[in-house]
């Protein structure tokens, strides 16, 4: 804006607040000079303004690939789940000490899912029987959290509620983050709980007449976590954490069945049955390293999981976050997942189990999955636009293992 020399001077309001929240792009020189200035004695930091409010929307959609004909009992390809997700989130800074975040997820699911698997006498392979009916379900999930900032620490509390036709869950938790060495080391810890209630819809629970129908079951989970984030040098951070979770109550899937050969060898189809408790430990490690010559950051994640159902898994994720001119960020990545089978899992059972635990759910089987993805992000003024694509395939012995392609579009708006 230019004005000729002799025009009347107009009053302009200038806001010279230049401190920005850590998730903004910060002008390097301004950051460096301001930080150096703040290190000078006697300069108390000007009142730190709260971060700006952010509103975000994501729309995701994925369709599981149709089950191959050779894997189904009827030798016909069967369509599986189509899932759409709308996710809204907002960060609402309240003051320099308090900030809130809310998010809501609305998910629609329709399609058929694996019901049980059997041993096909003709081929001696396991094959999937799908639920004939197509399920149409929606889920609404809402969460709210609050954070309170102290000079060297942050306290968080969160609560959430999820509801779908047959399942409600109420969750909550609290945590704290403690900062050391001017935030070069942050230690965080917390705990969470979830109280769930399952009331299977009768028409979806298809059983033989003499099988017990599940009507109203509960499940509780309790978790604690502790971890740290360490700034290693000006280009790298390392994060590591452990989460221990205990789930008790009704942990089976009321819609799934298993084929069990009885004492005489005759195959029966019965409801699956999982143990009433599942305790697990998760160990997550992450490295973020920036390469100045390439204007990009390498992300490497490793997660180890192990539980008392004897299921262990390893997940590796590697991505490259490339900054491009014009405020574009391009992130290709890969994820490799591997898990071993639960101790009581089998695609079908040739004899009854003494502990009476059965499940043919592919999610308890031995498999590996690989996904390739890329994200594109563009900043336009106060709006960030994001597009993401992911192609997931899994392989293993269970015939019901699924592949899908996930697509997401969305934006974040900073006020």
């Amino acid at each position, binding site marked *: *804006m*230019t*004005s*000729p*020399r002799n025009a009347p*001077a*107009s*009053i*302009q*309001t*200038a*806001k*010279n*607040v*230049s*401190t920005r929240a850590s998730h903004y792009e910060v*002008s*390097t*020189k*301004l950051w*460096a*000079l*301001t*930080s*150096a*200035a*703040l*290190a*000078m*004695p*006697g*300069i*108390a930091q*000007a*009142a730190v*303004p709260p971060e*700006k409010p952010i509103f975000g929307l994501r729309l995701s959609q994925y369709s599981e690939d149709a089950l191959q004909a050779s894997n189904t009992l009827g030798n016909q390809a069967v369509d599986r789940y189509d899932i759409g997700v709308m996710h809204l989130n907002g960060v609402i800074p309240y003051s320099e000490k308090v900030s809130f975040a809310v998010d809501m997820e609305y998910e629609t699911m329709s399609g058929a899912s694996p019901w049980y698997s059997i041993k096909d006498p003709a081929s001696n392979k396991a094959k999937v029987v799908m639920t004939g009916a197509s399920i149409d379900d929606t889920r609404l999930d809402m969460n709210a959290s609050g954070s309170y900032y102290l000079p060297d620490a942050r306290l968080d509390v969160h609560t959430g509620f999820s509801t779908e036709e047959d399942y409600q869950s109420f969750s909550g938790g609290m945590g704290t983050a403690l900062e050391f060495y001017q935030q070069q080391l942050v230690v965080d810890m917390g705990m969470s709980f979830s109280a769930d209630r399952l009331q299977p819809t009768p028409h979806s629970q298809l059983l033989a007449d003499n099988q017990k129908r599940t009507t109203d079951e509960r499940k509780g989970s309790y978790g604690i976590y502790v971890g740290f984030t360490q700034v290693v040098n000006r280009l790298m951070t390392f994060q590591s954490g452990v989460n221990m979770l205990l789930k008790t109550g009704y942990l089976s899937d009321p819609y799934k069945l298993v084929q069990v050969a009885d004492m005489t060898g005759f195959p029966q189809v019965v409801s699956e049955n999982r143990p009433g408790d599942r305790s697990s430990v998760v160990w997550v490690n992450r490295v973020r390293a920036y390469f100045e010559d390439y204007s990009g950051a390498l992300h490497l994640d490793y997660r180890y999981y192990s539980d008392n159902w004897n299921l262990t898994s390893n997940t590796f994720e590697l991505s490259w976050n490339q900054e491009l001119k014009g405020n574009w960020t391009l992130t290709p990545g890969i994820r490799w997942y591997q898990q071993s089978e639960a101790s009581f899992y089998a695609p079908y059972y040739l004899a009854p189990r003494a502990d009476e635990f059965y499940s043919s759910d592919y999610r308890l089987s031995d498999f590996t999955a690989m996904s390739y993805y890329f994200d594109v992000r563009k900043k336009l003024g106060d709006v960030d636009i994001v597009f993401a694509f992911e192609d997931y395939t899994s392989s293993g012995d269970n015939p019901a293992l699924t592949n899908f392609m996930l697509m997401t579009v969305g934006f974040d708006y900073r006020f």
Partner: protein
Amino acid sequence: MITVSEHVSPLISQHLLEPCADWRCVQYNFKLMGSPCQCIVYGQDPANLSVIMQQVFTELQALEQQFSRYQQDSWLSQVNQAAGTGQPVLQTPMSLAWVSYADQAFQQSGGLFDATAGVLRQAWDFKGGRLPDPAHIDALLPLIGWDQVQWNSHSIYLPLCGMQLDFGGFGKEYAADYAAARFRALGVDHGLVDLGGDLAVIGLQPNQQPWKVGVRDPFFRNSQSRPSGRAVCQLTLSQGGLATSGMYERCIRTDLKCYGHILQPRTGWPAEDTWASVTVLASQCIVAGTLSTVSLLQSAADARHWLQETGLSYVLVDAQGRVETAQLNF
């Protein structure tokens, strides 16, 4: 880059200084680091305000003592006297912060802001109004270069005899931030610190209004440059700091052009084709001052782009008197 010892004050609108209800205003004019300064504070007990004012003034004088090149026994003078002698000088916690800031300013400006460029003072005679001898400047250039300074958290050493350290490029701005912070710590919530044109806000006016500040027209001259100059632009300042750098405050005029007092460390001469004055607003006056000074060491287009990258508010006045501003709302 030469120390500017006579900043011209921005204009602070008179009507602000009328008392607001039961608030009393105490205004103190003094000279510090060679410049006319004033502190305006509001409070309910003027006697107490005066005591606070005196205390802050005393502390500012102590600061000046440590980092002034005029005082023979200041830390800065010790470093300058030890140049080329092989004897490093120990850092104090305060000096380390100053040296670190000077280092950051050097890095972030691509070497344009250089705390060793004060030796150019020996060649440039602004009071006399004569251009320097190019040979003299060339002789001084090897003594300039922050990257030659050997320093760490323990000590600092200027390797060549004749090298000089000079914190004048940000000393006054730092003092403004320091004074404002001290006032706040001593319980003053409303006021403004003005050290020769470098402003730091202590707090809003008692009626919760921001301070109205005018950016002085760099071309308007009367015989004594009295404070009743003309403003090209008015701003409101609610927090943080403001600093102005101007080519025309002190310059040597020839028939062809005006040579300002902000000199490039690599050439020893002022920048060509740059702004007449740059005013920057930032959270700290010291940062605003560094940015405004470095802007005058670049060409006009480069300086504008460089400032825009920071996202801060600024006012630019060019040699023809045209004004450009950026008001960025956060």
